[in-house]
């Protein structure tokens, strides 16, 4: 009995007929953390399987262990049609056994064309064995049109926004003839429209018998498409439930390991009276090629949302205000004083802060420690010669790690080793520690788990109460409704209007879609 099972004996274990993947007792340790502690996952044929858990629960890690990005330390993996315990040493191996994956961070090559990104590694070839560009471009066009996106597929990927890139990554995985499709937070940068398209694709594949693993932090989406749910917590397996046996509240409780009073209304009732003091005012600001001239105004202690369709220029608008892209026309005033913003540092000195939407490109300094990442903006504001003392750095870092519940092995861990959601928290901490008067949050809750998300929203309101002005961009209208007092609507790089007072899902939707004009 105490004799361990040898490899040969293990081969004898049968998988059930409709099981596509069985992962058991998976262990994966990183220096300082045990990311997976005897985790398990079972995927059936023709099901959409949600993988749920807090930030840093180990969702991405278990997926990477399956697809060969990481090599597991222990555990067994069985894949239908492959004999024995499967060890994928590279993603190439995983593709060979029929696993296609969209990873959490967009993993495409920015220098290649859209078509190539879709087909690299499996390019259509001519009779001579050479790459058939014509067919490739044609098929790429078809695939993208099929997803409702009409773009020039011969243009380099870097010219497209994060959302489009996300869709391309999905399209690539979907187009592979696979048994198993893994989607790690594919929807985090998509708007509702795109999400619906994705769901349709997923349902089609499901009908064809493909098993799908779907990671998301949006509970609605889980209930919209999924059949089963595996919940993970702290790298361990909590349970494998069918969707019907696990209502929302229970799911959240399972994820967090404690009861959670769902999404209690966090916005104070009634209209908050607006502080008459104008914090920031922009007149005719514009950036050539992205945003047309717009006016903008925000009062002290106000939370203003910016909404619009994918690519409507929400990000560009706030970047312009912050000076991340230097505005070419227009004037900006802070507290009535005209300011001249040439670079972000000028904005920081005026008390602004900007949490960018493209975390990987604009936010993370991956190889630096969590501590360095947190104090970066504060240090930049202080200037090079006023170094924040080591003790102070540690104090600040510890404070925010605690306050935002950042899951990290230590404060000296490189940021790149944190899970996606925790990286986002670190970047937020970077801005909070500068005590800004005016905070711009572009998709701050992207990839953040449900518990923290609520905390986040509470935090935003708390800041507002303390007199901070906040601009808030989110793809989730609901989230904005819960926090904002007013909303700007963007369409095609133009500010087309503002909504205040009567803000409901419907009114916002119709404003975005541009029903009336």
């Amino acid at each position: 009995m105490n004799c361990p099972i040898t490899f040969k004996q293990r081969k004898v274990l049968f998988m059930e007929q409709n099981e596509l993947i069985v992962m058991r007792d998976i262990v994966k340790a990183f220096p300082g953390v045990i990311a997976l502690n005897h985790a398990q996952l079972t995927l059936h044929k023709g099901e959409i399987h949600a993988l749920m858990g807090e930030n840093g629960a180990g969702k991405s890690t278990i997926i990477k262990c399956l697809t060969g990005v990481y090599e597991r330390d222990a555990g067994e993996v069985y894949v239908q049609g492959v004999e024995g315990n499967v060890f994928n040493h590279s993603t190439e191996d995983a593709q060979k056994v029929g696993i296609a994956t969209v990873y959490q961070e967009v993993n495409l090559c920015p220098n290649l064309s859209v078509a190539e990104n879709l087909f690299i590694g499996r390019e259509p070839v001519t009779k001579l064995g050479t790459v058939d560009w014509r067919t490739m471009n044609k098929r790429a066009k078809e695939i993208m049109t099929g997803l409702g996106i009409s773009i020039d597929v011969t243009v380099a990927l870097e010219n497209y926004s994060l959302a489009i890139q996300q869709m391309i990554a999905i399209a690539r995985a979907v187009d592979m003839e696979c048994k198993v499709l893994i989607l790690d937070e594919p929807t985090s940068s998509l708007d509702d429209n795109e999400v619906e398209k994705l769901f349709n694709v997923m349902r089609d594949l499901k009908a064809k018998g493909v098993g799908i693993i779907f990671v998301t932090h949006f509970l609605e989406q889980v209930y919209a498409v999924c059949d089963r749910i595996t919940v993970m917590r702290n790298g361990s397996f909590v349970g494998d439930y069918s969707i019907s046996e696990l209502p929302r509240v229970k799911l959240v409780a399972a994820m967090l390991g404690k009861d959670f009073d769902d999404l209690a209304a966090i916005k104070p009732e009634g209209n908050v009276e607006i502080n008459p003091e104008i914090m920031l005012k922009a007149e005719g600001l514009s950036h050539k090629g992205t945003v047309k001239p717009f006016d903008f105004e925000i009062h002290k202690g106000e939370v203003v949302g910016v909404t619009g369709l994918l690519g409507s220029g929400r990000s560009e608008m706030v970047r312009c205000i912050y000076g991340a892209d230097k505005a070419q026309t227009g004037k900006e005033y802070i507290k009535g004083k005209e300011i001249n913003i040439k670079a972000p540092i000028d904005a920081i000195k005026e008390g602004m802060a900007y949490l960018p939407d493209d975390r990987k490109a604009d936010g993370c300094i991956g190889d630096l420690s969590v501590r360095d990442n947190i104090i970066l903006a504060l240090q930049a504001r202080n200037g090079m010669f006023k170094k924040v003392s080591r003790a102070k750095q540690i104090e600040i870092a510890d404070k925010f790690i605690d306050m935002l519940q950042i899951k990290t092995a230590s404060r000296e861990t490189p940021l790149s080793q944190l899970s996606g959601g925790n990286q986002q928290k670190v970047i937020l901490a970077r801005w909070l520690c500068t005590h800004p008067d005016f905070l711009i949050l572009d998709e701050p809750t992207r990839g953040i788990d449900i518990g923290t998300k609520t905390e986040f929203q509470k935090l935003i309101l708390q800041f507002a109460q303390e007199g901070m002005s906040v601009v808030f961009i989110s793809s989730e209208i609901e989230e904005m409704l819960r926090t904002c007092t007013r909303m700007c609507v963007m369409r095609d790089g133009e500010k087309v209007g503002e909504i205040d007072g009567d803000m409901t899902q419907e009114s916002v939707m119709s404003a975005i879609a541009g029903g009336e004009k």
Partner: protein
Amino acid sequence: MEKIKKLTKQQLFLPFFCLLLVLLINLIKNPAFFSIGIQHGVLYGRLIDILNRGSEIAILAVGQTLVVAVSAGTDISVGSVMSLSACGTCMMLAGYGVNSTTELAVPMGVGILFGIFLGGVCGAMNGALVAKLKIQPMVATLILFTAARAIGLLMCNNQITYIRYEPYKYLGNFIPGCPVPTAIFVTIAVIAVVTLFLKKTALGLYIQSAGINSRAARISGINSALICFLCYVICGVCAGIAGMVASSRIYSADSNNIGLNYELDAILAVALGGNSLGGGKFNLAGAVIGAYTIQAITTTLLAMGVSTDQAPVVKAIIVIIIVVVQAPTFKEWIANAEAKRKALKVEGGQQA
């Protein structure tokens, strides 16, 4: 055991280990290598040679480390800039057109400052091209790589300019009464100043941020371009100082030969010190140790009488061994192989 493990985890362990390895070879081959004596009131021995002769590379490596960290590229002009600075100084000291002098035309300090200033100017030019015009570092520095030496030669009127003035020899040799080669002090001073600057200001953090993700650094309020420019200027100044030392050793400006191929050694030193040439995090001490490792190899080969033309073969092999030993992947392989061996042992034991 625990302590040893902890020691091996240290960042500097590997570069240091490699240096020791090279010295160990010497210990086995010829223990006399380590004899240090005092002759004519100065320290004398191969180890002193390594410290002394390694100064230029070490100083260059300091500047190069910063440049590599901030721009993920290398400054290949440092060798030429060394030569230019030396020529500039000698021209100032001797006066234009004079090819040998025993009297200085200007005070020595002025001449030396001028040389270092020239280095800074070259660094500024490289920096402007890289930081402002976003030209790839290697190409931007290729310009001065080609031109600096020639400009130096023009300054010296196409000749080797000799400064036969005793104090000028101090920098590269000995100050009377002091048994330690002056170059060692210069190196220590350069390293100390740069380290202090990095420690006392946030420059280190800025450099690393700009080097890892310059877009994110800019958004966080760091003027990436300025930091990049600054690093190139520092690198240029380091090259200028190294040029002074090299020039003082031969009390002349041999434009064609001062700093010849030093850029390669400087870059190699940075890498041997465990720094990634891809930019980002850096480790100054490692680079300095790397520099002395290279010099130790060179001195060893010379001591063993390996012909200078063929020495590169041995040098190449040693370098490969060092980097392979340092490579994380290699360490992983070894660890895996070990684990497998152990696992097999266990399994084998059970069957028996």
